[in-house]
C-alpha cells in the first residue's frame, strides 16, 4: 500500500497557478482559432505569472515543507519566486510587443521552416504571429519557481529540465538573423545538456554518499562525515551544473553567443529570470544541504567568483555588440552575486542571503530594462545592436538615451540607483564575513566594468550621430509598461530601498 504524500495545496498555489496557465496555454494553442489566439495567449500567460506573484505575496511569512518533503515553502523561496514571477510577467510583456517589428512580432512565424528557404522568405513578411512562446515561457517560469523551492535533489533536477527545455526552444525562434538564433539554441542545448549531466552525476554521487536526495538528510550526513570524498565530489558536480545556468565563469562560454543570438525579449527573460532561479537554487543547495560543510564549497565559490568578475569585466571591454556586452556584464554580475553568497555567516546568520536576494531583484529589473531599450533601436528590419550604431542617440531621442543611461549607470553601480544598493549590500555581507580580499577584487572589477558601460554613454551622448543611423521605434503599450516599471524601480531601489531591504531581510530564512 503506497501512502500518498502530504500536499499543502495552499503552499503550492504559486506553482499550480503558473503551471496551470502553461497547460491552458497548450490547450489554447491547439484549439483556439488562430486570428484571436495572440491576445488570449498573452492574457493566459499574464494571468498565470501575475497570479503566481499574488499567491507568493499572500503566502508571505509561511514556512513549511510539503509534498512529502520535496518542496520547501519559506521566506527566501517565496521572495525569489515572487521575483521570478514578476520579472517573468515583465518579460512576457516584451514578448507581446507588436508595434516594433514591421512583421508584428520578434518571433519567427514557423520555427520549423529552414532559414533562407522560399517558404521562409514568404513568411518573413507575413504578419501571422506565432504564439507557442507564451506557454513555453510559462513552463520555463514555472520550472524556475520550482527550482528555487526544491528541497531535494531530484525535484531540483526536474525543475532544471523544466526550465531549460523551453528556453532552448525559444532561444532559436528569432524572426531576424535566424541562423544566428538557431546556432545559439543548439549551442545552448548542447552545453546545457552537458551541465545537466554534470548535475545528474553529482546527484548520483551525493546519493551514494548519503543514501538520500533530501537536503536535510544530506545536511546531517555532511555534518557527520564531512570528509567523504564522494560527497565532496558530488557537491562539486552539482555546483558546476548550477553555475552553468547562472552563467558564472568559467562555465559561461555559452552566454555571449546565446544572449546575442536569441530574440532580445528572450535574452531579457534569460538574463533576469534564469539568473534569479539559478542563484535561488545555488543558495538553497549551499545553505541548506551543505550549510554545515561550508569549508567544502567556500573556497570553490570564492575562486569562481573572482574568475567570473574578472572574465566578465575584462572581456566585456572588448565587445562591440551591445547584447554581447550585456552578456559579459551578466557574467561579471554573477561574480558579484557570488560575493554575496560568500557572506553567509558561520552560524547561518549574516546578511549574505538577504543581500543576494536584493541584488537579484535589482539586477533583474535593471538588466530587463536595458534589454527592453535594445529592442527599440532598430535598423532596417532588425535591431541595431552594434555599438557604433548607437552614436549620437541622445540628440536623436533624448528620452530613450536617458533611460538607457540610467540602466547603464545602475549596472555600473553608481549611487542613487538600484545597482549601488545591491552592490553595497553584497560587499558589506562579504566584508562582514572577513572576505575583504574578495570584496576588493569585486570593487576593482566594478571599476573596470564601469568603463564599458560608460563607453555606451559616451557614444550616445558625446558623439555625433552617424548619417545613416538607426531609427528609434515607438514602443507599444507592453514595452512602455516594462520600461516605466523597470526605470522607476531602478531609481526607487536606489533612493528609497529601505522597505524592500526590510522585506528581503525578513524573508531571508531557509527551512530545511
Amino acid at each position, binding site marked *: 500500500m503506497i501512502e500518498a504524500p502530504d500536499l499543502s495545496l495552499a503552499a503550492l498555489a504559486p506553482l499550480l497557478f503558473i503551471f496551470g496557465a502553461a497547460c491552458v496555454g497548450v490547450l489554447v494553442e491547439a484549439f483556439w482559432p488562430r486570428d484571436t489566439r495572440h491576445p488570449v495567449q498573452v492574457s493566459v500567460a499574464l494571468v498565470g505569472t501575475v497570479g503566481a506573484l499574488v499567491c507568493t505575496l499572500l503566502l508571505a511569512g509561511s514556512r513549511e515543507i510539503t509534498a512529502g518533503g520535496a518542496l520547501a515553502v519559506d521566506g527566501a523561496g517565496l521572495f525569489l519566486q515572487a521575483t521570478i514571477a514578476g520579472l517573468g510577467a515583465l518579460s512576457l510583456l516584451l514578448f507581446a510587443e507588436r508595434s516594433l517589428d514591421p512583421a508584428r512580432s520578434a518571433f519567427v512565424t514557423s520555427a520549423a521552416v529552414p532559414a533562407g528557404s522560399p517558404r521562409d522568405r514568404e513568411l518573413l513578411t507575413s504578419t501571422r504571429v506565432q504564439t507557442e512562446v507564451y506557454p513555453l515561457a510559462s513552463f520555463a517560469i514555472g520550472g524556475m519557481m520550482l527550482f528555487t523551492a526544491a528541497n531535494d535533489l531530484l525535484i531540483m533536477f526536474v525543475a532544471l529540465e523544466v526550465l531549460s527545455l523551453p528556453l532552448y526552444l525559444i532561444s532559436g525562434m528569432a524572426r531576424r538573423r535566424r541562423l544566428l538564433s538557431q546556432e545559439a539554441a543548439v549551442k545552448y542545448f548542447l552545453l546545457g545538456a552537458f551541465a545537466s549531466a554534470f548535475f545528474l552525476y553529482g546527484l548520483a554521487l551525493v546519493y551514494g554518499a548519503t543514501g538520500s536526495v533530501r537536503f536535510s538528510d544530506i545536511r546531517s550526513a555532511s555534518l557527520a562525515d564531512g570528509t567523504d570524498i564522494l560527497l565532496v565530489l558530488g557537491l562539486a558536480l552539482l555546483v558546476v551544473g548550477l553555475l552553468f545556468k547562472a552563467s558564472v565563469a568559467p562555465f559561461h562560454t555559452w552566454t555571449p553567443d546565446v544572449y546575442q543570438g536569441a530574440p532580445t525579449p528572450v535574452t531579457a527573460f534569460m538574463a533576469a529570470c534564469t539568473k534569479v532561479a539559478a542563484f535561488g537554487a545555488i543558495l538553497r543547495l549551499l545553505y541548506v544541504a551543505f550549510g554545515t560543510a561550508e569549508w567544502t564549497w567556500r573556497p570553490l565559490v570564492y575562486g569562481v567568483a573572482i574568475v567570473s568578475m574578472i572574465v566578465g569585466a575584462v572581456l566585456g571591454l572588448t565587445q562591440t555588440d551591445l547584447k554581447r556586452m550585456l552578456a559579459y556584464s551578466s557574467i561579471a554580475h554573477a561574480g558579484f552575486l557570488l560575493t554575496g553568497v560568500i557572506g553567509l555567516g558561520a552560524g547561518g546568520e549574516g546578511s549574505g542571503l*538577504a543581500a543576494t536576494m536584493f541584488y537579484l531583484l535589482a539586477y533583474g529589473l535593471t538588466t530587463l530594462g536595458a534589454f527592453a531599450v535594445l529592442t527599440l533601436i532598430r535598423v532596417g528590419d532588425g535591431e541595431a545592436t552594434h555599438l557604433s550604431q548607437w552614436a549620437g542617440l541622445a*540628440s536623436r531621442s533624448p528620452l530613450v538615451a536617458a533611460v538607457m543611461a540610467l540602466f547603464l*549607470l545602475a549596472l*555600473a553601480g*553608481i*549611487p*542613487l540607483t538600484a545597482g*549601488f*544598493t545591491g552592490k*553595497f*549590500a553584497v*560587499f*558589506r555581507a562579504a*566584508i*562582514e564575513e572577513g572576505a*575583504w580580499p574578495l*570584496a*576588493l577584487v569585486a*570593487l*576593482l572589477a*566594478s*571599476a573596470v566594468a*564601469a*568603463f564599458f558601460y*560608460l*563607453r555606451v*554613454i*559616451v557614444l550616445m*551622448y*558625446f*558623439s*555625433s550621430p552617424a548619417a545613416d543611423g538607426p531609427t528609434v521605434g515607438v514602443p507599444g503599450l507592453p514595452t512602455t509598461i516594462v520600461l516605466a516599471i523597470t526605470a522607476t524601480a531602478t531609481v526607487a531601489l536606489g533612493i528609497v*530601498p*529601505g522597505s524592500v*531591504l*526590510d522585506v528581503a*531581510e525578513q524573508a531571508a530564512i531557509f527551512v530545511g
Partner: protein
Amino acid sequence: MSDLPFLLLMIAVPAVGAAVVAALPRGRDQLARQVALGVSLLVLVLAVLAAVAFDTAGERFQLTSSWTWIADFGVSFALGVDGIALVMLLLIGVLVPVVIGASWQDDAAGIGDVATDKRSMKAYFAWLLLLEAMMVGVFAATDVFLFYVFFEAMLVPMYFIIGSFGGPRRQYAAVKFFLYSLVGGLIMLAAVIGLYVVSNSQLGEGTFAFDALRGLEIDPGVQKLLFLGFFIAFAIKAPLVPFHTWLPDSGSEAPIGGAVLLVGVLDKVGTFGFLRYCLPLFPDASRFFAPYVLVLAVAGILYAALLAMGQSDMKRLVAYTSISHFGFIALGIFAFTTEAATGAVLYMVNHGIATGLLFLVVGMLIARGRSRQIGDYGGVAAKAPLLAGVFLVAGLASLALPGTNSFVSEFLVLIGSFPTQPVFTILATAGIILAALYILLMYQRTMHGPPRGVLLQEDPAEPLPAGGGATATLAAPTRSLRVLDLDRRELAVVAPLVALIIVLGVYPQPLLGLIEPAVSATMSDLGGTAR
C-alpha cells in the same frame, strides 16, 4: 529663522531647479538661464543666512538635521556643518551664480565645438544646478555613507558637463575623469564598509554617523588600511602627485564653467576629506603616513609648477597651477598644527576664488581668440585693457601677492608648517617663486608685446590653422569679437570675485573666525603631536 533646514534646502533647491530647467521646452534657453541664475542666487542667499545662523562659539556641528534613510544599513540622511564645511558652502554659493553668468552666452561665443550648437544650453544649466546640489550634499553630510553617495553621484553631472560641452578631446577627458574618481571612490567604499564593520563590532550596531565613528578605538593595523582607502580616494580627487594626471585633461577639456567648479570646488572635496575624515577617524594612521603625504605634497608643489611653466595651452597651465596649490593645502593639513590647517582651509576658499577667476578670464580670452594656445595671443592689453587688468588681478592672486586673499592663506600655511616640518616648508617656498614665473610669463606673453597670432588675423571667419585649439570649427561671428574688451555682463561676472580677492586679502577675519574652531576640534581629535 535659524530653525530653517538650511542645508536640506541648499540641496533641494538646486536639485528641483535642475529638474525645472531640464523640463523647460526646447529652445527656451533664455528662460533656462534666468531660472538657473535665480536658483543659484537663492542658494547663495541660503548659504549666507546659514553662515549668519552659525554660532562660532557653539557646537562643532550646527544646523544639523537627521532622518533615517536605509535602516537596514544603519544609514541616516544626516546633515550638519562645521566651520570648514560652511566656508565651502559659501564658496559654492558664490561660484555657481558666477559660473552661470559666465556661461550666459556660451551658445553664441562657443564653449566647445560643433556639438554645442545642437545641444541646448538648458541641459548645461540643469547639470550645473544638479552638480551644485551634489556638491552641497558632499560638504554637508555628517554620515559617511551619505558622504560617499554624494561623492560618487557628483561624478555624473560633471561627467556630462565635460563630455557634452567640452573641447575636442572631451570624450577622452570625461571618461578619464570618471574612471579615476570611480576607482578612488570604490576603494573608499571598501574602507567605508570596513568602518561600518568595526563600528558593528565595537558599538554593537553598525553605524555611519561621523560622530559615533569618531569615538571608535580602531586597531592601528586596521587604521592604516582604512586610512589608505580614504586617502587614495581623496588624493585622486585633490589631486596629489602621482594621482593627478586626469586633472590637466579634464581641466582643459571642460567648458570654462565646468572647469571653474571642477578645480574650485570638486577637487576641494579631496582636501576637505583629509581634514574631515582621514585625520579625525584615523589619527594614528595619519601620523604614521604624514611624512609620506608631505613628500607627495611638496613634490606636487614643485613638479606641477615646473610642468605649468612648460605648458602652451592656457587651460592646462591653470590646471597644473592648481595641482601645485593643492600641494600647499595638503602640506598645511598634514603639518598637524592648527595654524597651518586653518591656513589650508582658507587656502581652499581662496584658491577657489583666485583660480576660478583665472579660469574665467582665460575663458573670456579664449572666447575671443578661439584658441587655447598662449602663442596665439600677444599684446591683448592694448586692445582690451579691462580684460588684461582682471587677468593680472587673477594672476597676482594666484601667485599669492601680499594684499590679495591667497597671500594670507599661503603665509598661514607656511608659518604654521615651519615649526613641525621645517624642511618640507622650505622646499615648498620654492613653489612660490615658480608660481610667479608661470603666472607672469603667461601674462606677459599674452597681454603685452607686439600684437601676435589671432590679433593679426583680420578676417575672423577664417578658421585658425591646425593646432588652433578648441573652438576653431565653430562658426565665427560676423564681427571681430576677439579684440573687444570685457562687456558689462563679463564685468558683472568677474567683479564679485575681484572684490573678494581684495577684501579677503585685507580682512580675512570673518572666515578665519568660522574656520578656526572647527580646525582646533579636528586637531584635538588627532591628539598627540597636534598643537
